[in-house]
Structures are given as C-alpha cells and as structure tokens.
C-alpha cells in the first residue's frame, strides 16, 4: 500500500466542511411536522371510522340485537347482585341499596328485551314505541337514583354513575333505532 501513501495523504488533507448552523433546527422542525402529520392522520382515521359507523343505517335485526344485548348485560349484572354478592356486611347502607338494585336491573333487562323484540317482530311500526321505551329506561335509573340517594353518599355516587350510563346508552340506542326508522321510511318512500 506504500505506493498509495501520497494519494492517501492528499485525501486526508482535504479540508472538512462545516454544515450550516440552521441544520439541527431545520431537522427538528421537520421532525415535529412529521409527528403533527402522524397525529393528524390518527385523528382523521378515527373521525372517518366513527363517521362510517354512524353513516350506515342499521338493519331491523341489528337494531333489535343492540337492545337485547344491552338487556342481557343488565340481566347478568342483576343476577350477580342477587345471587353472588353476599359478603357485604348486613344492615349496611350499601347492602340495602345493592339488594334493591338487582330487581331494578332485572326489570330494565326485561324492558330492553321487550323493546328489542318489538323492533325485531314489528319493524318500523315499533320505532316510536322503542324510542319512548328508551325514555322510560332512562327514567327508571333516574328514579332509582333519587330513591336510593337517601342510602348515603356511596349509593348516590353509584346511582348517578348508572344514570349517566343509562343516559348515554339510551341516546346511542335511540340514535340507532332512529337511523333504522329513517332508512326504512326512505326505502318505503
């Protein structure tokens, strides 16, 4: 390699160049924009996903199943409270409140099943019935919360939580049955 020593020396003597002082800020700025674009993409996807879900009208069966599913959820909840929770201290405020909640849950479960069945079997004719039925469903929880509020802070807190849950699921089911009603009206028209 000695014969290349002169060439190697000359290569090593080439002066290094300095990058501009703005290089690091420019890179970091571009990186921050990449991140912004990434987050924007995620939000955009989420938005369109939700939009797609709400844009499609449910069929009669889908609508009925959503009611019945919610009913099954409350039924399981009610049965668990009725048969499996026995370790709560007797005569405590919580015990009384929870024991009274189980029939409420079972009642709500049956009511939602009735509404779902009505939509399934009677279709568009049951839409108004189902919508008013949902108002009753929400009212059951609100009344239950008001009654149980005398059972202490815990009962009031949990009752409020359940009422809010009922309100949100009620609005969601109402939206679903409303979309189905609109779609079936349009197809008739």
């Amino acid at each position, binding site marked *: 390699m000695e014969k290349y020593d002169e060439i190697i020396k*000359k*290569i090593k003597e080439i*002066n*290094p160049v300095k*990058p501009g002082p703005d290089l*690091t800020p420019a890179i970091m700025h571009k*990186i921050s924009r*990449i991140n912004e674009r990434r987050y924007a993409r995620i939000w955009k996807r989420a938005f369109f996903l939700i939009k797609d879900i709400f844009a499609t009208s449910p069929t009669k069966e889908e609508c009925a199943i959503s009611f019945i599913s919610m009913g099954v959820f409350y039924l399981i909840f009610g049965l668990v409270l009725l048969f499996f929770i026995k370790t709560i201290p007797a005569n405590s405020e919580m015990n009384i409140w929870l024991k009274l909640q189980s029939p409420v849950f079972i009642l709500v479960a049956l009511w939602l099943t009735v509404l779902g069945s009505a939509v399934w079997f009677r279709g568009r004719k049951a839409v108004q019935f189902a919508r008013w039925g949902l108002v009753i469903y929400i009212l059951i929880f609100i009344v239950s919360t008001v009654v149980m509020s005398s059972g202490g802070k815990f009962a009031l807190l949990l009752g409020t939580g359940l009422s809010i849950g009922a309100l949100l699921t009620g609005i969601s089911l109402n939206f679903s049955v409303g979309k189905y009603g609109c779609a079936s009206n349009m197809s008739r028209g």
Partner: protein
Amino acid sequence: MDQKIEAEIVARVLKGDRQAYAMLVEEYKSPIYNLAYRMTGNSEDADDLTQETFIRAYQYLWRYDTGKKFFTWLYTLALNLIRGHFKKNKYNKSSEELSAHLLSDKNPSPETELIETQEMSVYLLRMEYESRALLIMKYYQELTFEEIAQITGKSLSAVKMSIYRGLEKLKELLRE
C-alpha cells in the same frame, strides 16, 4: 459518543422524547454532511441529504438495533439516500460536470475557496459512486475497515479489495 449513551438516547426518543433526538443530530450532522458533500460536491444537495438522512433515521428508529453502533446505521441510511439521489437525478455525472458543480456551488461554505484549490476532491468526484464512497469513508473520514464493512454490508475482504481498486483507479486518474 458512547454506544450505551446512544442506546439511552434512542430509547428516550422511542418513548416520545423528541428533543433528545437533537443530541444525536448534533453529534453526527458533521460527518454525514461531509460524506454527502464529498459525494455530491454540492452544499445544497449535501444539506438536503443530511436532513433527509436524519429524518429517515427518526422515522425508522424502531428498526435500529441498539446492540450496534448508531453511526454505522446512520451511514448506511445516508449512503442509500445518496445513491438514490444519484439515480433520481440521473447524474452519476461526468468528471467535468461534477467539477463544475463543485466550483459553481451557490452557497459555498467558508472553506470552499480552499476546496477549490484541492485537486484531490475534484478527482474523487470523477470516480464511480462505490469507489468514491469507500475512499471518502476510509481516508477522509478515517473509518475502520470493519466499520465500513458493517455500513456497506460487504465482507471485510471485499471492502479492502474495493478500496485497493479505488486507490488504483485514482492513481490512474492523477496520471492522466
């Protein structure tokens, strides 16, 4: 920079601490810029390619194996981008074109006047892409054969042979 510190910085960046990446940029911007500059002979292209290299590295940082040196991975990315740049611009230019490019640099660095006087940098630009990259990394940036082998993905003997051929070619050019 110590490999352990590099790995820690990379871990921080991957966890979302974006600003930590600036430390890696500061550490390696100069060698990457010099590589790009000596490969393209143009400060604008060198600037763009350096930025692109660090942005690409940031985007694919999750692929980086922390058991290896960060700068070898960065060099691999840089060389791939430089190769892509030549293909895209279809200018594996002739010696005269590249020399003219170097001399007509619109934004010369403070050292450009000196560079103009250095024939060797012009001769390097007249070489083929692969040989030029290897000679720059080995003698200008003083990387070891092992590091170059890791960067290029070639065997050690292949790297040594290519560098030897590159020197031979350069010697021929100097004789012309």
